[in-house]
């Protein structure tokens, strides 16, 4: 026993020393890229095919830049084809760092932020101004001047905006907004289905009960009930319990109001909402009629027996599973239904699909076309370079490239000559690319398409100067080509009704909107991006109220009678008062109005 222990201990010491030595070296070389040398641009694997078609490779020092990005699928050194192409062209390897808000806070506190970050207070729990005052960011003015040709050329309005509103009054450029979109009036981007939020219904079941008319939300609820009965009678989910409406509890009360108030015509920010029709009436979210109408919708659904009681204990995972199993007949956003519809097809239920009904009793359909975003996503996801960056000029070169048309096309469509080609002046994705994207679930990951969009100055649907969107798969022609059978049946039905010609579901809604039969909102409220941060105490109050509402809203939805519902509402409003909700709302309203004034003064509103 003694001898064994000694052996173990000595081996251990040796191992520790070896590993510590390994650790001391700070380069995180991933074994597969270790062999790449700086000056060579030889062919050898997929990405290098492109080097013949693209410009000559970079001949200089190869550097690795760390980038904070929680949306990229796999952290660490990026090995996909797009990243390799960037490496070829710029000599920069991208090393992605990820984490939750706790990790981000720690990195900020310890001064260990990656070279390039984006700011997203909702996700990171650190305000954009705090990042500036923490001294962690560097001002990019000089860098942009020298290396930022494309940044200056494309959407230069961003720079002024950043200087004025995102620099903590220092009049410098710390943040560069991303994902700018300017509509091309000849080619507005009509969404394939709808752009994001909305109540989206199981079309096949709706069809099965005879496409009943819907004029009010009551009608919609009744139709959902009929759908539920039909689905249950016909056992559409293989014995599993079906509910028309379900939800999840781990995003707070998100399912219970977000899509509904969007369809009522409200938009907002910082806990306030206002109606598209009458911008001047701004109110706090939690005591507004719109919010409570929304809760009332779900309350009625609950009492009609069409709301899954497990929605209040389930997590988002389980909602996806239930939807994919066909147990849920209404969803909340297109980024859910897009994937679920694809899942249906791959599981042999190609006739099932979620579609946006033109009428569900609410006034608006949000997201028929993409509205302008001249300042991109404003202060959300705006790029910044931190003082830890040893190669700020290279960082700016990377950022500049991703703010160019060439870079945007690379990020969204892949490598020219490999994933898309120019056919007589018309850029088109290759057959192979289209095929593999549909059939191989790892393909797009391996190519790296769309992964780094948060660094890109352009939105994917932005029309480039060659008349095609940055993401070639999002052109009208591609959308029409990739229509699924279920989507086709939706289009066919409406073609019969209106005599129109529709290549994909979004066109149905677009047509109805042009004819004035349905409403959508296309205004861009530039001042929403100009609202300053509120004070700490207000932020605290708002968070606390949010936590409070998580409980009260569910109570209200589960109220068994109208009287109970109203009683709960009274109780909640009183509770909000006690938490000083109106004080916080007032401050936010003041900031919003101030932003409006600022926008007017700057002549942009």
């Amino acid at each position, binding site marked *: *026993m*003694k001898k064994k222990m000694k052996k*173990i*201990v000595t081996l*251990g010491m040796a*191992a*520790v020393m070896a*590993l*510590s030595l*390994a*650790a001391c070296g*700070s380069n*995180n*070389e*991933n*074994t*597969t890229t270790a062999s790449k040398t700086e000056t060579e641009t030889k062919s050898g694997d997929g990405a290098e095919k492109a080097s013949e078609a693209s410009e000559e490779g970079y001949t200089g020092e190869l550097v690795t830049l760390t980038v904070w990005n929680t*949306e990229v*699928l*796999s*952290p*660490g*050194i990026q090995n996909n084809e797009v990243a390799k192409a960037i490496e070829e062209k710029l000599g920069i390897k991208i090393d992605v*760092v*990820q*984490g939750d808000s*706790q*990790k981000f*806070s*720690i990195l900020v*506190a*310890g001064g*260990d932020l990656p070279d390039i970050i984006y700011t997203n207070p909702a996700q990171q729990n650190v305000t954009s101004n705090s990042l500036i005052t923490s001294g962690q960011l560097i001002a990019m003015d000089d860098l942009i001047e020298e290396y930022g040709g494309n940044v200056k050329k494309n959407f230069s309005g961003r720079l002024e905006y950043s200087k004025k509103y995102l620099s903590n009054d220092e009049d410098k450029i710390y943040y560069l907004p991303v994902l700018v979109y300017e509509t091309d009036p000849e080619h507005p981007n009509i969404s394939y289905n709808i752009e*994001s939020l909305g109540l989206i219904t199981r079309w096949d079941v709706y069809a099965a009960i005879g496409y009943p008319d819907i004029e009010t939300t009551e009608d919609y609820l009744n139709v959902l009930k009929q759908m539920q009965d039909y689905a249950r009678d016909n056992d559409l989910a*293989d014995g*599993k319990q079906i509910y028309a409406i379900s939800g999840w509890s781990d995003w707070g009360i998100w399912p219970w109001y977000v899509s509904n108030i969007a369809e009522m015509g409200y938009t907002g920010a910082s806990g306030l909402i206002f109606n598209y029709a009458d911008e001047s009436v701004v109110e706090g979210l939690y005591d507004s009629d719109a919010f409570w109408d929304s809760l009332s919708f779900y309350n009625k659904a609950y009492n009609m027996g069409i709301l899954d009681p497990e929605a209040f204990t389930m997590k*988002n*995972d389980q909602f*996806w*599973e239930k939807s*994919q*199993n066909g147990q849920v007949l209404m969803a909340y956003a297109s*980024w859910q239904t*897009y*994937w679920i519809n*694809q*899942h249906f097809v*791959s*599981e042999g239920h190609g006739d099932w699909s979620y579609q946006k009904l033109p009428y569900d009793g609410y006034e608006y359909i949000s997201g028929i076309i993409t509205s302008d975003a001249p300042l991109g*996503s404003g202060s959300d996801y705006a790029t910044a370079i931190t003082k830890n960056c040893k190669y700020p000029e290279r960082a700016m070169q990377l950022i500049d490239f991703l703010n160019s048309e060439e870079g945007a096309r690379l990020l969204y469509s892949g490598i020219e000559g490999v994933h898309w080609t120019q056919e007589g002046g018309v850029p088109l994705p290759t057959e192979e690319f289209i095929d593999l*994207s549909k059939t191989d*679930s*790892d*393909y*797009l*990951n391996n190519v790296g398409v*769309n992964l780094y*969009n948060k660094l890109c100055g352009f939105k*994917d*649907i932005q029309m480039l100067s060659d008349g095609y969107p940055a993401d070639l798969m999002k052109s009208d022609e591609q959308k029409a080509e990739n229509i699924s059978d279920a989507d086709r049946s939706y289009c066919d039905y409406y073609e019969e009704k209106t005599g129109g010609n529709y290549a994909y579901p979004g066109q149905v809604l677009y047509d109805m909107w042009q004819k004035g039969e349905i409403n959508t909102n296309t205004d861009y409220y530039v001042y929403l991006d100009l609202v300053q941060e509120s004070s700490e105490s207000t932020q605290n109050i708002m968070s606390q109220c949010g936590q409070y509402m998580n409980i009260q809203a569910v109570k209200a939805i589960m109220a068994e009678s109208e009287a109970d519902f109203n009683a709960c509402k009274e109780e909640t409003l009183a509770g909000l008062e006690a938490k000083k909700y109106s004080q916080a709302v007032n401050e936010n309203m003041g900031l919003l109005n101030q932003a409006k004034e600022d926008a007017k003064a700057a002549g942009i509103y």
Partner: protein
Amino acid sequence: MKKKYSISGRLADILIVLFCTLLMIACIYPFYYIIIYSISVPSEASKGLFLLPKGFNLDTYKGILKLNDIPGAYMISICRSVLGTVITVICSSFFAYLVANPNMYLRAVVYRIVILTMYINAGLIPWYMTMKAYGLQNNFLLYIIPGAVSAYYVILLKTYMEQLPRELEESAKIDGAGLFIVYRKIIFPLSKPIVATVAVYSVVGHWNAWTDNYFLVSNAKLQTLQMVLYNYLNQANRFQNMTSKSIDASAVRSSITPTSVKMCITVLVVLPIMFVYPFLQRYFVKGIMMGAVKG
């Protein structure tokens, strides 16, 4: 007065066996469920399983084992568990031995200083800054050094050691043994059951730990198994957490569901432990240790 030993004894035996069997089922079935879920076709499995897997599909396992980092991560976790446990066992038990001696100068003070550490928690940021200041960021030693003297283990060890007969120690001292020799030759061997217990707790603790990795270690070569698997799970979850205004989704959704990933991860993490466990188990399951004290 007393019933015949054999009847009540038999009855007791039967009841005990029955109870233990039921308990075993309650413990095994969930794990069995996890295993069959992990080898089922994920979309089928989400519809509900009971006794048999639905379909047969190893894609999730393949997806995990294909990751470049897995072999390295297994190595790191194994090294961490072994080295960390060795260090913890040696340091904690020696310290416990010192404190177990009633003659120790300032014994209560020393013991209490260590016990209090179980109650103090300075917060994530100060902990991070301190570890960084000690040079433990991105350093393998972070995994094995801070846990060397662990209050809970010290308590267990000390309580046990206190109960060992004093005479053995006394007689050794009379024979001229210094305190380290007494520890090594007498106390440590006698404390096998508790040392094995602490070893098991420590191995499992190290095997499952990942927060230090998450916050302080970004070097790709030093990632633990739990961290790699956790990252992979987040990948699978990422589709469903996108709330951005347009479909910024970046890949076709694969057939691997987050739930099946969780199940596979559990299996991959638990199986190695199950191999190691029986070796340590024999030290604290009675029957082998007859006459240990005499030795």
